[in-house]
């Protein structure tokens, strides 16, 4: 039996994917792979929740579409001009690059924070999928204000789903990309079909002549549900921009773009964000309005599309939780050097599954997304400054690696200081990251500039 187990383990070990060293040229992926990956990633289970929350937060139609359009353009530009160029030049994951810049000690702290945040996000995906499966078993979905699980059935359901998602995440990047490629067009159609089918229930005529009137009066009517904070144009623009902040400005997607042949592959993210973070959010808004503004993604999809809608919600959660768990596995791998990838992914999946039992992970999703980006953003700013600005000002790079520091206290000070400064800024949570990014960039360059080594005197 132990021999059999070790044979399985060694087979799983072959899934090792150059995580710890720069990607070799023969491992670079085609544009098609990137298109499939991004399309699968941004048409996710959480889109059922986010789009619906905009309705519950009383966003007006005009503010919503314009805010989403501009915010998504800013997000694509952030991927293309901030994240992808650094990934293509280094061919490293962010985690290993941070290790060079900030030292292995800080890399451990950062990776742990990263893994926990990823796990919470993947937990939200599992919880959303659970609302769909729960319909079939008569398990009541949690309410808007619920923090803890409301039934044993809900706990068992999320644990079962989490175990399935984790097993699939163990299979690795290539297979996930292939699976997402198959599922993503169909999941997107589920959103479109759901919205189309819900429109007649809301009173939209077959010739669309009263769509704008219905949208403004019965869907995005500017009236927030009790207990939900009203949101406007600026909130939406910033939300669309920062909802993947950790991935673009925070540079987490270096893990993906290190496989890109060119930095311009960053533009492929538009294929994901516009369908996923614009059309799908508009569609889920229509679906939630059609079920009387009840926050239950499974019910929304079931009412609009029937049994296929339920499957759509589950698959949407599955295809997005998988790359998220993969990233969490990458993040954890640096702190468990002796562990193979499959073991690390199972550890991340177990933590995620436990978190998914708590409904707060998806009932407070909008605020969580903001906090998630805010916490990781300063490290993205430090890496950006280290990569581009320090050579520009002729300041020594990769000091931690060269001097063998365990922790770069300057990076740690900038990271914690920026988070503290953002916390104190007297502006809405959604707007805090932008001044925070500026604070992190300037303070890191200044700190590095003030500790320059003295130039050695030349001797003849």
């Amino acid at each position, binding site marked *: 039996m132990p021999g059999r187990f070790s044979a399985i383990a060694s087979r799983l070990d072959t899934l090792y994917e150059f995580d710890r060293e720069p990607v070799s040229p023969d491992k670079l992926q085609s544009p098609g792979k990137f298109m499939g990956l991004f399309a699968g990633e941004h048409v996710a289970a959480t889109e059922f929740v986010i789009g619906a929350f905009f309705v519950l937060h009383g966003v007006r139609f005009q503010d919503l579409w314009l805010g989403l359009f501009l915010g998504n353009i800013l997000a694509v530009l952030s991927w293309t001009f901030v994240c992808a160029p650094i990934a293509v030049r280094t061919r490293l994951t962010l985690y290993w690059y941070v290790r060079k810049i900030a030292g292995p000690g800080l890399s451990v702290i950062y990776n742990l924070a990263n893994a926990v945040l990823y796990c919470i996000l993947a937990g939200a995906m599992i919880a959303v999928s659970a609302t769909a499966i729960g319909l079939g078993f008569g398990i009541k979905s949690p309410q808007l204000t619920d923090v803890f699980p409301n039934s044993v059935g809900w706990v068992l359901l999320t644990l079962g789903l989490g175990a399935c998602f984790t097993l699939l995440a163990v299979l690795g990047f290539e297979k996930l990309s292939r699976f997402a490629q*198959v599922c993503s067009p*169909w999941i997107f159609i589920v959103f479109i079909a759901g919205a189309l*089918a819900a429109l007649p229930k809301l009173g939209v005529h077959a010739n669309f002549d009263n769509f704008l009137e219905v949208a403004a009066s019965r869907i995005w009517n500017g009236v927030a549900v009790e207990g939900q904070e009203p949101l406007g144009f600026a909130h939406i623009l910033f939300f669309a921009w920062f909802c993947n902040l950790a991935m673009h400005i925070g540079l987490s997607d270096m893990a993906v773009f290190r496989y890109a042949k060119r930095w311009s592959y960053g533009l492929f993210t538009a294929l994901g964000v516009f369908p996923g973070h614009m059309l799908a959010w508009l569609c889920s808004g229509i679906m939630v309005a059609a079920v009387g503004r009840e926050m239950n993604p499974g019910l929304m999809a079931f009412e609009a*599309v029937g*049994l*296929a809608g339920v499957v759509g919600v589950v698959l949407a959660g599955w295809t997005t939780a998988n790359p998220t768990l993969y990233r969490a596995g990458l993040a954890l791998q640096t702190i468990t050097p002796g562990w193979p990838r499959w073991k690390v992914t199972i550890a991340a999946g177990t933590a995620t599954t436990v978190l998914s039992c708590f409904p707060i992970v998806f009932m407070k999703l909008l605020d969580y997304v903001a906090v998630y980006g805010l916490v990781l953003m300063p490290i993205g700013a430090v890496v950006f400054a280290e990569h581009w600005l320090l050579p520009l000002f002729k300041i020594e790079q990769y000091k931690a690696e060269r001097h063998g520091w365990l922790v770069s206290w300057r990076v740690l000070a900038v990271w914690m200081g920026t988070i503290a400064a953002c916390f104190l800024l007297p502006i809405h949570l959604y707007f805090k990251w932008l001044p925070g990014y500026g604070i992190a960039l300037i303070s890191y360059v200044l700190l590095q500039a003030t500790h320059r080594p003295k130039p050695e005197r030349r001797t003849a």
Partner: protein
Amino acid sequence: MIRRLSRIFLGASLALCLIYPALFFLGSMGDSGYKRGFLLSSIAYFLFAIILAASPDRKKR
């Protein structure tokens, strides 16, 4: 040949997934008929996707 046919049917089944809700929206089809049609088209989509994935790709050989 199998791959090419699977691709065609894959696209066709995805198109059907859009056509059924469109017909329901236009009032040409009832709620249960639309949902049944969407479900069957979806099953067909995944069936052809599996066939496509399982059939050998000559270019890759």
